[in-house]
Each structure stands twice: as C-alpha cells, then as structure tokens.
C-alpha cells in the first residue's frame, strides 16, 4: 500500500538529521510490502488535505525557523483540518514549537504558531542540551534521544505529553513532561534522530498512517537487533548524563 508522507520545509528544517527519520519510515514500510511516497511541501506550496497520511516537520536554527514561520501560518487551517481528519503528524524540535500557539524569544518577541498542539513555548538563555529517556506509559514503551533547545514548552492544562521524563530535561526541565500528543499528532524535542533507535514509534506512526490511508494497520515484526542495541546505549547515556537544572 502507498503511504503518503508530506515533509514540510525539508530544505529549511533539517538540522538534526531529520532525513534519518524519513529513511527509517521508508525502509520499515518497504520491508512490510508498503511504499512510502514522500512529497516535499515547501514555501508557497499548498497542503493537499486528505491526500497526506503522515506529515513530518523537523527542526531548524532560529534563523531558518523565522524564515518559514510566516508561510506556515498560511497553512494552519489546512494542517489542523488534516489532523482532525485523522492524518498522522510527527513534529520534532523547532517544528514542534511551531505547532504550538506561540513562541516567545529571549527578547520578548512573540512569533505566532499554528495552534495545532495545546501548548506554547518561551525561550530562555540557558539551553537544555543532553541525552533524554522517556517513559511512554500510553504505549508501554520508552523513547531515547537527544535534546537541544532554548525554548521551555508549557502544555495546557489536561494536555497529554508524549512521555514522562526518566532522565533529561524534557519540555521545560521542571514539569517532568516531554513532548505532546493530540489525536495522531506527536510533537517532541527528541532527535538523534528519533526513529532509528526507537523502532516501535516508527511502526506506530506507520500504522496510524496506514489507518488514514484505509489499509491494514498490522505490521509484521522485524528483528531489530541493531535498533535494540542502539536504544539500550542511548538510554544508558541518558541515565548516566541526562541534563537537569
């Protein structure tokens, strides 16, 4: 089955090896007899609502993020509509911040986000940098990755985080929350990239994308020995040297 992926601003937002996430989704789809068709959605491109099963947006440096923020605002209603219609969405780092209501930089300037996720972000001078380990009780799994952000992301009351921080800073270094999830949309600061060492989450996204595409959502298990080793080492790194204030 064809899984249609819309990769937002791949030329601008690609700082932490976002193409690694796409490569993992593509190969894991192929190994199950599916085909990942990735379409770039750039500045001035329309969002083909209903024709995308999984959206992806990565992170950039402040400069690149500022360059796309204005264009993204024009795509806000189409992207919200897609998520309300059960498309899947993964947003990493800067892309995660842009999906919130706003981002306030250190100088106090507010950049509006698209309000797709129930959160806002306030930058601080001290960056939160280091290995991270999350417990995702909703999936009975853990996620291991690396974070590097100046923004403190605050979830709205009752909003669901992606996971609870076992080690590392997470959204704000205080709440114990990391990331956010809403319907089939997930935002997170974790890169590394995220999916190679957390294959269960890659498969979870593929299943949800397949559900949107109207296909069978069951995926044949893979052996994932290297993935398991990489996860174990990354998780151990977070336990040994994850950041905290």
């Amino acid at each position, binding site marked *: 089955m064809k899984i249609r992926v819309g990769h937002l601003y791949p030329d601008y937002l*690609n*700082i932490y090896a976002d*193409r690694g996430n796409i490569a993992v989704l593509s190969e894991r789809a192929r190994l199950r007899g599916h085909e990942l068709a990735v379409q770039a959605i750039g500045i001035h491109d329309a969002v083909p609502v209903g024709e995308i099963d999984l959206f992806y947006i990565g992170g950039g440096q402040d400069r690149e993020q500022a360059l796309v923020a204005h264009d993204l605002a024009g795509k806000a209603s189409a992207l919200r509509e897609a998520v309300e219609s059960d498309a899947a969405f993964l947003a990493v780092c800067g892309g995660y911040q842009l999906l919130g209501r706003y981002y306030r930089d250190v100088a106090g300037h507010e950049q509006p986000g698209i309000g797709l996720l129930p959160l806002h972000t306030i930058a601080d001078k001290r960056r939160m940098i280091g290995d991270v380990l999350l417990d995702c009780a909703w999936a009975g799994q853990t996620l291991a990755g690396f974070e590097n952000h100046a923004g403190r992301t605050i979830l709205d009351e009752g909003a669901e985080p992606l996971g609870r921080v076992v080690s590392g800073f997470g959204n704000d270094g205080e709440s114990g929350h990391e990331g956010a999830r809403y319907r089939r949309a997930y935002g997170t600061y974790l890169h590394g990239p995220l999916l190679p060492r957390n294959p269960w989450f890659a498969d979870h996204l593929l299943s949800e994308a397949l559900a949107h595409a109207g296909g069978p959502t069951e995926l044949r298990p893979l052996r994932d020995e290297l993935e398991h*080793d990489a996860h174990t080492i990354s998780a151990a790194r977070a336990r040994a040297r994850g950041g905290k204030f």
Partner: protein
Amino acid sequence: MRFPIPLNLESAALRAAGKVSRLTGRGGGTTLPGKLLWKLDPDAIDLLAGRLPQGSVLISATNGKTTTTAMVAEILRPRMRVAHNNSGANLVSGVASTLLRAGGAELGLFEVDEGALPEVARRVRPKALLLGNLFRDQLDRYGELEIVAVRWRDAVAEMPDAKLVLNGDDPQVGDLARLHGGARLFGLDDPRRARPALQHAADSKYCLRCGTPYDYAAAYVGHLGDYTCPNCGHARPALDVVARDIELQGLDGASFTLHAPEGETRVQLALPGLYNVYNAVGAGALALALGVPIDEVAAGLERFSAAFGRFERITIGDRQLLMLLIKNPAGANEVVRTLVEGSTPRVAVIALNDEIADGRDVSWIWDVDFEPLLEGLDTLVATGERAAELALRFAYGGLPRDRIEVVPSLEKALDRGLELTPSGGDLAVLPTYTAMLALRKIVASRGHVTNYWETAA
C-alpha cells in the same frame, strides 16, 4: 585572586605537571600545565604571549584548522622558530600550554577552537588572524551556528590592527571583511571542480541580508563557493588569493595554481581532496600576508604531508592504514568524496564515539552522505561507543546488514579490519576525534607511529 608570578619558576613547575601526566599514562598531558596556569593566573597567558618577539598568529575554522595551521608551520619553519599547538589542544588551556613550552620561539602559531576564539584573541592579541569556515558542528556545545558567527564578529571588531585573512567563499566568514579595513580574501575559482548541487549538509545557504536562497555559480565544499543572492544581490566578495586550475589526483594528491597579488605559482600538494586545496590556499594567503615570498609559500605547501589523523598513512606490516578524521557532516562528506575518487575501499573501519570532543549528539552521522561508499564496500566494521548507531546509519542507508560487523572495541575492530584487508591493500579508518586519539595510541603502542606529544615541537 592574582598570584604574583615568578614566571620562570612557575613555568618549570607547570611543565613538570605535564611530564607527570604523561608518565602516569594520562595521555599527552598537553593541556594540563595550561589548565593549571589558566586557573592560577589567567593574565599570565597575555604576558607569555607578549614575550614572543614576532607576536602571534591565530587560525580558526570549523573544518581544516589543524591542517591549515600545520601547513603554515611548515611554510614558516625555515624562517623562524615557531611555537605551535600541534597536538590539537586548541582551547585557551592548550594555547597556554604551548606558550609555557615556547622558550626560544619567535612566533606563536595557534589553531583555536571556534568558540574559544574571542577569549584567546583578547589575551594573545594576534598580529594576524585566519578565519576559514563555519559549518554546523557540535551544536550540543555551541547551540547554534549563528552564536559562533556573532562571537567571531565581536572578536574581529576588537582587533582593528591585526591582519585579517578570510575565506570569501563562506558567506558568513567573507562578510566579516566589512568590519575590518584591508582584509585579504581567499577562495577557489575552478567551476569544473564544483558539486552538481548544494549538499544536504550545506549550512549558510540563505542570504545573510534578506533570507533568499543563494544562487551558486559553483558550490565546492558544503556551502562554500561562488554565491549570489538573486533578490538583493549580496554576493561573494572579490577574492585576493585564489586557487585555479585545480587537478585532483585520487588519493595521491592535488595540484593547483596559487594566484595572488604577489604573483602566481603552481603548487603540488601531497594531500588529496578539494578541502585540502582550501586549507592550502588559506595557509598560503596567511603566509603571504605575513610577508613570506610566494615561492617559499609554495615550497612549504609542497613539503607538507599530513597533520596527525588527517589523511595520515600508517604502514602496518604489508598493509597501509589510511586514517581520516571525521567530525561533522561537511568534513566527513569531503573525506567520503576523496576516498571514492581514489578507489572505493572494500573494507572500512568507522569509529563513532560520543565524548565531549566528539560531540555528545551523534545525530550528525545521518547528515553525512556516506552513500557513495556503499557500492564498493564488502564489509563495514562499525566501532566505538556508539557503534550500533553507526551500523543503523549504514543499514538504513542501504548497506545489507550481513555486510556490517559491530565491534565496539576499537582495538578489536582495528584488528578485524586488518584481517579483512588483503595483503598489500589499504584499510580506510574513519574515526571521530577521541576514537582517532585512541586508535593512534593503539598503533603507537605497537610501534607503527610515535605518540603525538613526542613529535610536538
């Protein structure tokens, strides 16, 4: 608190600390004396630097600073005694350690970490400064590229009297010329050697002034090249010192015509790769700015073989080990390109560590274009602390998993690589920084190379 400094006494004690560090097997001990000095009396660094009769010269860049500095050292060697931090210790403490050992030297020649440049420049007050390039590297240490660029702008603004040598092919670096009268700009001019498209890992690809993507008449290495903004017209500045008619000779070397206001000469480098042409033209531009005649510049560049771990050839029995440091996407892409232009190795040992000096964030390996290696590769030996992550990079890049061996121990991986290399063949070893130091130590302990602190001037 400031210690009164009987410098001679103090220097002797600090040098002794370095010796103890080496004797106790704590590695090179190259920065320990400097660290102590830095703690005891940071101002002593200014004083020691002030004693060098010819002053100091600083070189910084994300990629190529060790090689460029070593090239300048080789050019200057027949002319004067140079104090050079050739062990790669390039933070303030490393510069301080070199200054402590600088007795009798006339000139200080220091490669400096990008982030440490403002502090070192403030203390050493260089008479000349070469700035090579800015790529994304160790974002876990610096946050963002822009933060380093701002620090460089501040440092340049504070040194109006220093001779400034800049890579005009890098938009961020070339732009510093505006802040300084009389900067010398260097770059490449040979569109035949350009990449067909801007690489994935290119960084400064949007106009500094207006944010529009640059048009590249030629993109040579990452975002380095001949750029013009189609919207506002911001473009590569006119270059003073240029490499033209570049010939790449596989793994054996490269040659080019060095064109400068002082004249023109052909240079045959013993180092391969376009990135080494950048290093050479930068080193040449700096030496020319220091008043070295152009024929001496060319002769020095031609004598130069390799800085340690940077395209170093080490003979082990009847096999050759090629050690090529990798540390960020732009640099690693050039290593891959150069290897493939030689002839793709059939066995490669790639070592990924994640200590502070390597970058704790290993995501950069996913931004490297390793793919050109895949076709000719029979076996990848993935090693280092993050060997499994590296193996995943190649597996998802398309290398069949049965051709990947994960051997976390560096020593065992090296032996496995040698075992897989046919007699008379080359083994390509691509380590990150701390893995390179460890691997060099292993081959040194077997008597194949000397330890780097034993070669230190």
